[in-house]
């Protein structure tokens, strides 16, 4: 009896023990875009394929000089900005950052931010001033 049903029983027990833990994991609370009603593509498409769009765009930009806005990383942050208590945009160092919210949940670490800026571009005037 034990020999015959032992393994399925163990499996069922493990599943029963595991299910409540899975259900308890809180889903990410995705921050809403600060402006615009519609993303550059459908939301479902973007959730599954944003990485492919960004990778394609990055090669087009660096190697071929194509700088369209539609799928550019820079363009993401014109809408997807999370502001802190002082109305300043938070960087990817902050867990509230738009990218971080899902990526932390999925335990997928991206290294975009080692080089790229993770907040919207400051206005052209402040750039011209020359920061110290």
């Amino acid at each position, binding site marked *: 009896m034990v020999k015959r049903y032992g393994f399925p029983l163990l499996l069922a027990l493990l599943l029963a023990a595991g299910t409540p833990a899975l259900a308890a994991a809180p889903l990410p609370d995705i921050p809403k875009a600060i402006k615009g009603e519609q993303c550059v593509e459908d939301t479902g498409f973007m959730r599954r394929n944003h990485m492919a769009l960004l990778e394609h765009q*990055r*090669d*087009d930009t*660096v*190697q*071929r*000089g*194509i*700088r*369209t*806005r539609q799928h550019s990383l*820079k363009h993401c942050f014109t809408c997807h900005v999370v502001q802190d208590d002082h109305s300043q945009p938070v960087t990817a160092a902050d867990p509230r950052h738009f990218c971080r919210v899902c990526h932390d949940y999925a335990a997928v670490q991206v290294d975009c931010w*080692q*080089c*790229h*800026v993770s907040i919207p*571009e*400051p206005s052209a005037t402040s*750039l011209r001033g*020359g*920061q*110290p």
Partner: protein
Amino acid sequence: MSDEKALSGEKVMNNKIDSYKRRFLAQSAVITGAAALGGGLVLTRVVQARPASQAVSSKNRWGLLIDTRKCANDCDACVQACEMEHGWGRGSSDEQRSSPAQKAQWIRKVTLRDRTTGHETSLPMMCQHCAHPPCVDVCPTGASMKRDDGIVLVDKHRCIGCRYCMMACPYKARSFIHEDLHGQKTASPRGKGTVESCNLCVHRVDQGKIPACAEACPEKAILFGDLKDADSEIARRLASEPSTEIRGDLRLDLGVRYQNI
């Protein structure tokens, strides 16, 4: 009579055309050619203001012509403009632990002194944007690359930081980032573990603007333009005035040329 009619007439009555008529046709063909060339030149200017969706093409080759006589010894406006534009050196508060030799250096002022006469020449030195770049030859990943329009740059997505290109470059144009960075510019992503160098302000060139160093020079000693456009100021000056490639003996066909050195 239109040129087209004259040309078709020439085919039919080829044997009967006298020498006078031949001369007339030759002249009109030259005029037609000139008109076509004029149209082509106008088109080239349109191509320079390329739409964002269009890839760069080998019809252009961007380069610099630097007149060292206009370059003042104590001026480093071009270096400062580059630092601010790309966020290195004085344009950044990062790289605190790196030694001066380790820190990023996209462009530097170099002073040449004639040992006999004591005459000093000052010039800005940066990536020379070779047509046959040794850095591209040696790169194991294809990160060190030359765009179709002649701009040599590092695709940092592919750079593994091996620094082979730094050793291959005869101009010491490249530097390696040793530390985590935080204050990068949106237009110029830079990061630890990758090699970088002057990219001729590729983000500005793509928008139809000139590089920051050329814009900042108070004496207009740095001229930016399309070497392949015979009508551009840089091509006209290169054709009519003497200029030098640094280490021209290497025959790398440089995109940056100097005058009066």
